[in-house]
């Protein structure tokens, strides 16, 4: 008993003194408890409830932007208030409005989720963070007067910062629910993407499902059938859960697109009640539907890498091209070369940073390793070297490795055998290597596998054929109808 009394004595200076303040605190405490219990008392069970809940709930997307705007205004006013004191007086009012808007948005959001039968970790996260936000704003309202009274001056700024952080998190969760979790990152430039994943790169997907079907479902369906929200008990974020189906049974029947519920629903007329994606979300494109149909038709396999009759152009991650430096000082020599009958350096374009191309076609058989070394001084500016049908040999690699900006190298029909190709592995910009008609062997090509920007290696008419490396050089295949 004594200890409790002691405790009360200790916190006495902290407790509100006036009657009204005490009432406010009690009210706040009660609200907090109610909010925290709300989800326990009325759980989101994933089943739709009364229509009026949904009717009101659908105003959530409208109302939800009010607290965001109002709350963002608070720190602005606080800071601007340092210079124009009049603004500071408005903060209390705006904060109060924000609290009201928060509460209203929370209530409507809850009605939307409960009424519409939303469930899933995403909805739960959104709900809990919104609850936390409302409580944080409430505390802000209460703590703000302390600042002027001189108690715990840091409490209010700290609380406000917390509230804003929670606001960002909540808003992002809400966005992910409506637009899908990859909405923000889908069109992010490749360079940024690389940064944002910071090397934690998953191995590139190879199956048709992973490359083409899953991304469609992710973009168009996951908002309601993803881990964040599982409407109709259907989860589409993985192959297994997709095949399991939802409340109405499986949605995909391998080999029978016309019986597959998923396809039926996306192909209804857009104004049909059961049309998917529902609620005015962007519908699937005709080609996406046709890919899904073909995929189901051909067995809905999670591992098949290609489907007969379907080819989809893929965005290749393009390596940013490194501009070459200024070769203006060498321009006179380049002009002299152009006048002569020998090898020439030709600008790729009128922009100097695009670099130079080394052409040898006029002198082919008289152009050997010795002649190549004369181009060393131009080395960093040459982006493409056409040495096909010249007399260069493996010794040329010693010179070529200095061509730091080389992107394409033509060595077709030369005496090159591939010994020492490893010397080229420092050419980080090299994407194209043509060794057709040479005596290179598969073994000599091994060092190239470490060059990750090297996309096309041509080995036509060499002992190393068929190409052990990437796609382009592979023979054509024909699919009969």
């Amino acid at each position, binding site marked *: 008993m004594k200890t409790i009394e002691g405790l009360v004595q200790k916190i006495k200076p902290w407790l509100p003194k006036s009657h009204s303040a005490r009432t406010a605190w009690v009210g706040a405490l009660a609200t907090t408890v109610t909010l925290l219990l709300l989800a326990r008392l009325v759980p989101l069970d994933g089943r739709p409830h009364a229509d009026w809940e949904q009717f009101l709930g659908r105003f959530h997307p409208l109302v939800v932007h009010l607290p965001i705007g109002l709350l963002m205004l608070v720190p602005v006013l606080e800071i601007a208030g340092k210079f124009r004191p009049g603004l500071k007086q408005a903060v209390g009012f705006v904060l109060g409005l924000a609290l009201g808007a928060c509460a209203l948005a929370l209530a409507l959001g809850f009605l939307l989720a409960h009424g519409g039968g939303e469930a899933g970790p995403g909805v739960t996260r959104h709900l809990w963070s919104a609850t936390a936000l409302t409580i944080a704003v409430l505390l802000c309202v209460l703590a703000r007067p302390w600042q002027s009274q001189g108690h715990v001056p840091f409490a209010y700024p700290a609380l406000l910062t917390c509230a804003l952080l929670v606001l960002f998190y909540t808003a992002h969760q809400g966005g992910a629910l409506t637009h899908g979790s990859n909405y923000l990152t889908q069109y992010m430039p490749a360079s940024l993407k690389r940064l944002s994943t910071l090397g934690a790169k998953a191995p590139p997907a190879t199956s048709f499902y992973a490359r083409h079907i899953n991304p469609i479902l992710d973009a168009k369906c996951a908002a309601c059938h993803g881990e964040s929200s599982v409407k109709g008990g259907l989860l589409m974020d993985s192959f297994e859960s997709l095949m399991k189906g939802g409340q109405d049974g499986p949605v995909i029947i391998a080999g029978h697109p016309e019986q597959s519920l998923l396809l039926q629903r996306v192909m209804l007329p857009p104004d049909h009640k059961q049309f998917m994606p529902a609620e005015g979300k962007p519908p699937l494109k005709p080609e996406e539907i046709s890919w899904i149909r073909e995929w189901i038709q051909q067995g809905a396999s999670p591992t098949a890498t290609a489907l007969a009759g379907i080819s989809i*152009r893929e965005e290749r991650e393009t390596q940013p091209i490194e501009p070459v430096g200024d070769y203006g000082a060498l321009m006179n020599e380049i002009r002299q070369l*152009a006048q002569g009958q020998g090898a020439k350096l030709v600008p*790729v*374009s009128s922009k100097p940073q695009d670099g130079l191309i080394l052409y040898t076609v006029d002198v082919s058989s008289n152009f050997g390793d010795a002649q190549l070394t004369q181009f060393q001084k131009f080395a960093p500016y040459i982006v493409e070297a056409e040495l096909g049908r010249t007399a260069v040999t493996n010794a040329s690699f010693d010179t070529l490795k200095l061509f730091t900006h080389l992107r394409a190298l033509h060595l077709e029909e030369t005496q090159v055998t591939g010994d020492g190709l490893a010397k080229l592995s420092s050419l980080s910009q090299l994407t194209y290597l043509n060794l057709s008609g040479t005596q290179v062997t598969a073994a000599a090509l091994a060092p190239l596998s470490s060059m990750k920007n090297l996309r096309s290696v041509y080995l036509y008419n060499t002992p190393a054929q068929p190409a052990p490396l990437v796609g382009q*050089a592979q023979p054509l295949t024909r699919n009969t109808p």
Partner: protein
Amino acid sequence: MKQHPLCTDTEQAPSALHPAVPTEMQREWATLNTRRHFLGRTGKVLGWAALASLLGDRGMRGDAYKAGGKDGSGPRDAESLKLPHFAPRAKRAIYLFMSGGPSQVDLLDYKPNLAALYDKDIPDSVRGAQQLTGMTSGQARFPIAPSHWSFKRYGETGTWVSDLLPFTGRIVDDLAIIKSTNTDAINHEPAIMLMNTGNMNAGKPCLGSWLAYGLGSMNDNLPTFMVLQSKLNTKENNQPVSSRLWSSGFLSSEYAGVGLRSTGDPVLYLTDPNGVDREVRRKMLDAVNEINRQTYEELGDPETNARIAQYEMAYRMQTSVPELADLSKEPNSTWDLYGPEAKEPGTFAYNCLMARRLAERGVRFTQVYKRGWDMHDNVTGILPIICGETDRGCYALVTDLKRRGMLDDTLVVWAGEFGRTVYSQGGLSPENYGRDHHPRCYTTWMAGGGVRTGITYGETDDYSYNVVKDPVTVRDFNATILHCLGMDHNRLTYKFQGLEQKLTGPTPASVVQGLLA
């Protein structure tokens, strides 16, 4: 020539409006050229000369003075022209020109629904108020002639291709098929001029000349722009193609296409006659060039320099062309790919092989002409023949370039000057029909450097009559080709007759972004 007794310069009888002037009177008039005449005319001439110098070189003469190689040094340098405008995706192009107008309905524009409409009249709403050619405008009715051939799907893209083109079917995944090409001209000559030079009237430089002008040469020993004509098949209706189509127009004649003949010597009179060796030839050329140089200094006509450059080119071609035409070193895989026909000079397959060899040797632009696609009647008789002649060559060329790693920087274009009507010209029977010229839609394709692969661009209506989606005009088509080769069609201009002339003409054109990789 019969001379009229009264007259010195005409064989026509005298008329009251144009009286013939007797010689005596003319002499008298000449003696009347007095000091007054002389002073009057001299004043005018001086005035013009002053004006010309005020306006500067370009004011009167356009770009010709600047562009014709200075001091006889040969081709203009890209540096001073600021060309190409941006880094090109393709360094060179091969244009397979299907002269006569291939029938899109029978080849690549698959319209399965037409079969049910056999011999039904094409709805007026589809034809609209179109003016037809004189060949069918008198027809009482326009019965639909569905394609005689069935279509199959090919490649990973599942593209529909006629049974007439089984080889083309194998490369559909590498092609960008354009179903919505359309032109303004309805007859061969204007249409083929429009495709090649951007203008229906003769006199403008053709695409190849613009490319040669803009890109310059990669190989000093061969022309920048070459034209290969395929042998005629007399069973086909061969519309004429003329050197107007590879003319350099107002650009220096160095940029004109150089044709290789389909039979005999590829270039006439290129070999030295008996008793003349290379040294003698060299001396002769040096002397001729010296005389030409004096002429240039005297008159300043840039064409003189072009002539010097052409003599020198011909001299170098004396060694480069025999090497080019020597196919003995081609590996067996070449013949497996192009087929035995390719061994016979002048066939389309041979020309495709030559086009690849020219591309290897740094020729910027090679145009292969195949005539005979003009089928006003007997489509079922002639179309299989001409498809048989061309199909394998197209496939072999694209495949060969691809396996040799050349398709990355070579643009291949397949096009005619227009398409053919879905309705039959003349009698329609289940076995045979004819097709008239059709400018509103036709199918072309591109492959290689800078072009998206495995796509079909544009759509036509159910009758393959009107374009319903993504139309590609001839201007857009040419602008796109220029774009792939690093040039902006709006900036590749040449001042002539007071206008900034360009390939796509004054009507706005746009690069077809959907075709670009």
